[in-house]
């Protein structure tokens, strides 16, 4: 029988002589780590519940809408890609409000940010990496549902190839609209998170901001019910479209108050769709450029505040 002998050597400390990829690797590490945090990867089961539920809802809604579209003609109006955004936007807003603070608050509360700042990484790299991480997750979420929906619509159509030929332009449209929504739902919760180290405070503030502004906008843009014909009458829809809110001429401007609906106005423009909510009806009365400018102001302004906030961070 052969006897195997061996000896273990302690080589002591070995210097690293492999590649050093500098700032690009550092940025990538922040980005990947941010995505893992957002999805709860490398953490306990509890951290995976919310992202899991959200992806489940996104896929489920897309599948259900595809099935409705594929069902024999029931005389009802078929769902569209714009309808899908309306369904999932509320879920996406809640997800953003809860998950986005995870990417910034713990780093400041636990002091890890100080370890990042002494590495080959600027504060712009750090904030940009975290922003991009959450944007990537949001975009993946949005696009997954829309692609499932598009595939569902195509397969459910009487003639799939004809549907594809006639509607292929929907793909760049819903991707552009998704981009608009993802940029907004990434930037706003992150800027709020930059002002507190408590995740719960940031989440509560963002959700509160969305809901309270939506309620205020709903009230101030509501039509005078006395001036409307009875619901169900042929002229009801037209009267609703043309009605003047109780706040008068300013009503259409007050529609912009609802922060959660700001990206929706722009995505409706991109998708060439008309949302029937009272707020959207009023905003539509404004020149098209106004909701776009408002959206740009909010996102670019929030992004700048986020960057400035971190620039002032000193150890």
């Amino acid at each position, binding site marked *: 029988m052969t006897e195997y002998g061996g000896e273990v*050597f302690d*080589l*002591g*400390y*070995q*210097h*690293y*002589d*492999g*590649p*050093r*990829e*500098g*700032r690009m*690797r*550092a940025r*990538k*590490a*922040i980005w990947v*780590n941010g995505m893992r945090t957002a999805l709860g990867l*490398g*953490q*306990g089961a509890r951290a995976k519940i919310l992202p899991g539920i959200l992806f489940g809802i996104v896929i489920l809604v897309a599948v259900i809408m595809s099935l409705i579209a594929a069902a024999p003609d029931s005389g009802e109006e078929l769902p569209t890609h714009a309808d899908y955004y309306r369904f999932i936007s509320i879920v996406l807003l809640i997800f953003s409000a809860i998950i986005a603070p995870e990417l910034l608050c*713990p*780093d400041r509360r*636990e*002091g*890890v940010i*100080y*370890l*990042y*700042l*002494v*590495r*080959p*990484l*600027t504060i712009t790299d750090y904030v940009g990496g975290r922003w991009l991480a959450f944007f990537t997750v949001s975009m993946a979420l949005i696009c997954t549902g829309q692609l499932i929906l598009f595939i569902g619509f195509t397969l459910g159509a009487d003639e799939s190839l004809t549907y594809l030929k006639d509607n292929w332009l929907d793909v760049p449209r819903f991707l552009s609209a998704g981009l608009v929504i993802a940029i907004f739902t990434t930037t706003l919760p992150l800027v709020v998170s930059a002002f507190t180290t408590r995740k719960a405070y940031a989440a509560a503030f963002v959700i509160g901001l969305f809901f309270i502004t939506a309620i205020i906008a709903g009230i101030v843009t509501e039509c005078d019910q006395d001036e409307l014909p009875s619901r169900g009458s042929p002229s009801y829809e037209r009267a609703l479209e043309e009605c003047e809110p109780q706040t008068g001429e300013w009503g259409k401007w007050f529609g912009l108050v609802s922060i959660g609906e700001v990206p929706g106005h722009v995505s409706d423009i991109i998708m060439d769709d008309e949302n029937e909510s009272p707020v959207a009806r009023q905003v539509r009365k404004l020149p098209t450029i106004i909701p776009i400018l408002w959206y740009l102001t909010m996102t670019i302004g929030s992004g700048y505040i986020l960057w400035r906030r971190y620039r002032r961070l*000193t*150890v």
Partner: protein
Amino acid sequence: MQIALSQIGMGNPHESIHRMIPLLEAKGLAKHYGTTIALESVDFQVHEGITGLLGHNGAGKSTAIKLFLGILTPTSGSAEVMGKKACESVDVRAHLGYMPEHDCLPSNPTASEFLTHMAQVSGLPPVFARTRAADILRHVGLAEERYRSLGSFSTGMKQRVKLAQALVHDPTLVLLDEATSGLDPGGREEMLDLIRRTGKEFGISILLSSHLMGDIERTCDRIIVLDGGHISEAGSVSRFTRETQNIIVEVDNNLDELMKIMIREGINATVEGPLVIVELDSEDQYDTIRDAVVEADATLRRLAPRRHGLADIFRGGQS
């Protein structure tokens, strides 16, 4: 026995850099916070080896470290790292390690995950980062605990992880800010030993900031003393701890009897706690002291020249 290249001073790709130019150089460096002066026009250099940055709380030690890390911008003057201005060069930080005084560890990840991530943030590719993380955890004595979440670590273990994250990318120089802060005597001794090994065996230069003179005295080769934002002393530790003209006599018993005999024999001796301090007039007095100990029937524990301590710097003992 096999000797690693690092143990004979080879294998460090940055060695040629810091042979030619100082690792750190302060040139007229000043930092003011409004009317508060943290550092006022200081000039010093840090070369290879272990250098101590000693000073009371608020002396400007942490400010100096942050200026070299490029986190703060100087009010005037410059803080240079390996010949590059710290606040203008981000890439030079890939060759620096930093261990802050305060808590800076996340609670969720395991030690291995955290160090791997930190190595990548320092620019190492993922595969190499994992290997380095495992190696460094072994060197700081945490190999067994590498898959435990950091939240479950004791204070001493957290200090080791903090040191490990500063070393994981194999820096040329590591800046340690109050590295023994919050540790019990045993943990403090272990940490100082680890720092000594990092400097001597690993060949990584160290700037150790501390207000504890014992830590600096036992660990460092050179010392820079900051006081109120100014440098009050700088030089090798051995210069500050040179022998004095006094000798220490330590006995286990009959101390009073010994003192009486010494005074009778004309020896200039004083009692300091359990020690007798003799001011030596000539070499012959060694024999007189020996005879006095025998006559007093005391058990001699120590008879040695007295050295200055770093504490004397603050008491003006060196001036």
